């Protein structure tokens, strides 16, 4: 039998730069590597010596797609360090800002990055030529998320209005109320989205995953709670590094985050599966309507989990706005304390862990950041191996596209180059 090699030099429709190499010997998968060659940007090193108050703005620049996630994890870590607990209104405003990012990021991924795969289009622009109404709906939904971020954060990418202790400026009640109309429309579009994605053709793949997410009794996972899994994990975030380790494998130049030495999955599929009962009423009703029930183990159906989460955050955003009373001050004063601060929040793509050591002057001595995509990298490769073995009969171009689609199940954000190592780029 002939040896065949499939090489994707630049993965498309992912954030950042990655490549995939598959070597097949006859009917045997010989080698499969997902390579991340995002140039290293050294965030953990350049944070040293910076003021603790600078971490939210600096770490936001790790990722232009989910800057709020980086701002939230760093802010929660610093407030934990300073011993400051923000009041409920401020907490809900942060959640609202995060909801904006989830809507924007999920709508972008569903419509522009992922759905075209299921339908056989190269991009959303190609899809729009045949089905403009679908793409327009996706962009309109995305725009509502961006408007929420622009109102609360000042702008959509790298928001300027958040700080350790709260915000620089709180929105007025009328500014927030003005978002109710667009959010109500977004909720309707999100429901149409869920119906639409539920009807996509799903490749056949069921996998035995360890799902990991935050869990809090009162709310859908986002910015507080304990770390749980479907395999008896129940951990305080303070103990994250006792169970989660990043490993540098000898055959690879990438860092893989492992839970007790094993791969695990973070992101929408983990959250919906583990915290289904905390989804909003309309999100749960929709799940029932389209026949989506936990535990879903087909990674391609993460697009449905994402759509259900958009319904949830639209509904929750409306509830937050209804309950809003502007606080007396936009922020709590936070004075630096020497010590360690850590936090985990749910980025659209999954848990994002930050830990900082800060000195008595408030200067950062050490920083550790574990982005969601480095945590999913192990399962992405495992999915691909399984998928390739099952589909060896496919011609190269179809197998390649199927693999790309499987990588995009995780909405990988490779720009999170805090840890993504550059590898020696193979030159051909």
């Amino acid at each position, binding site marked *: 039998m002939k040896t065949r090699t499939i090489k994707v030099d630049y993965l498309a*429709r992912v954030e950042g730069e990655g490549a995939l190499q598959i070597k097949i010997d006859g009917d045997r998968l010989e080698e499969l590597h997902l390579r991340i060659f995002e140039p290293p940007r050294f*965030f953990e*090193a350049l944070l040293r010596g910076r003021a603790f108050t*600078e971490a939210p703005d600096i770490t936001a620049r790790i*990722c*232009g797609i989910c800057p709020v996630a980086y701002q939230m994890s760093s802010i929660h870590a610093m407030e934990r360090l300073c011993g400051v607990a923000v009041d409920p209104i401020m907490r809900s405003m942060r959640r609202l800002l995060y909801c904006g990012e989830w809507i924007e990021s999920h709508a972008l991924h569903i419509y522009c990055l992922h759905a075209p795969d299921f339908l056989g289009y190269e991009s959303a622009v190609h899809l729009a030529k045949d089905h403009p109404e679908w793409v327009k709906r996706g962009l309109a939904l995305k*725009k509502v998320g961006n408007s929420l971020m622009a109102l609360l954060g000042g702008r959509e*990418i*790298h928001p300027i*209005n958040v700080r350790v202790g709260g915000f620089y400026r709180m929105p007025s009640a009328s500014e927030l109320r003005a978002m109710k109309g667009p959010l109500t429309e977004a909720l309707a579009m999100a429901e149409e989205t869920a119906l639409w994605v539920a009807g996509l053709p799903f490749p056949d793949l069921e996998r035995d995953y360890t799902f990991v997410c935050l869990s809090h009794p009162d709310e859908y996972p986002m910015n507080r709670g304990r770390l749980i899994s479907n395999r008896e994990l129940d951990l305080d975030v303070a103990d994250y590094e006792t169970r989660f380790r990043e490993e540098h494998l000898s055959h690879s130049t990438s860092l893989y985050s492992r839970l007790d030495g094993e791969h695990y999955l973070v992101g929408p599929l983990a959250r919906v599966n583990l915290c289904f009962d905390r989804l909003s009423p309309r999100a749960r009703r929709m799940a029932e309507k389209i026949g989506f029930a936990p535990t879903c183990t087909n990674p391609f159906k993460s697009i449905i989990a994402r759509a259900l989460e958009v319904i949830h955050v639209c509904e929750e955003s409306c509830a937050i706005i209804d309950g809003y009373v502007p606080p007396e001050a936009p922020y709590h004063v936070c004075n630096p304390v020497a010590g360690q601060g850590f936090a985990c929040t749910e980025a659209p793509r999954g848990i994002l862990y930050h830990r900082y050591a800060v000195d008595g002057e408030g200067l950062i001595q050490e920083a550790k950041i574990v982005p969601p995509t480095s945590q999913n990298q192990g399962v992405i490769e495992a999915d691909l191996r399984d998928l390739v073995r099952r589909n060896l009969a496919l011609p190269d171009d179809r197998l390649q596209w199927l693999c790309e689609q499987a990588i995009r199940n995780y909405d990988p954000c490779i720009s999170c180059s805090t840890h993504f190592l550059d590898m020696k780029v193979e030159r051909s």
Partner: protein
Amino acid sequence: MSEPAKRPSLAVWKFASCDGCQLSLLDCEDELLAVAGAVDIAHFLEASREVKPGPYDLSLVEGSITTPHDAERIRFVRAQSRFLVTIGACATSGGVQALRNFADVDEYLSIVYAHPEYIQTLATSTPIADHVKVDFELRGCPIDKRQLLEVITAFLHGARPRLPAESVCMSCKRRGNPCIMVLRGEPCLGPLTHEGCGALCPTYNRACYGCFGPKPFPNTGSFTDWCLGRGSLTRPEAVRLFRTFNANAPAFETESRRHEDQNDQS
């Protein structure tokens, strides 16, 4: 034989960056499909797996040069591009990753990576214009999407983009914001910073932190000495203030080094 009029082709390229500036194009929700109708999106990996061969009429370049491979790749991009426009602080000044320029990159490597020997990196992060000819630079961390549309529109009409090179203070005044420096005595980089955001931070009660980089001929020395004299800034804070997302922009770099040197002497 004459061919039917072709739409100009657009390519988007990424170097060391966060992807935020190219996302700005996808964030033009109301205009995206119109843009896609006016230009032929020939190479835009974040959005499409279809890659058409060059040359390209307009290339938008995001990110800075930080690896030997990228230093080669930008020459290829230039050779394939009729017009090359850099988008964002990374591409126009080196970005936040240019903080390595003030440090020892080997030390950075050993802090972040278990096996530094696997990493290929340059000691510096440099803007695109240090490597190839650039036809227009669009500033900001991130860029402003309205400015991006202005650049694309101007290109389609064969015109220069109409983007003022004034300071943030000018739009701040036009918006009627109370001055942060006057009212609160806080060091606000507005007087030194290139306009483009519409004075966003002061509008949100926050001092400008200079994410659009220096305006032409900023009076950095006078600004910092004034703040130091009033006690609203210490020298280490002054160094950090100029060393964020445009640390390698010459005006900001010179000013931060001036205060670092004086730190060492004191």
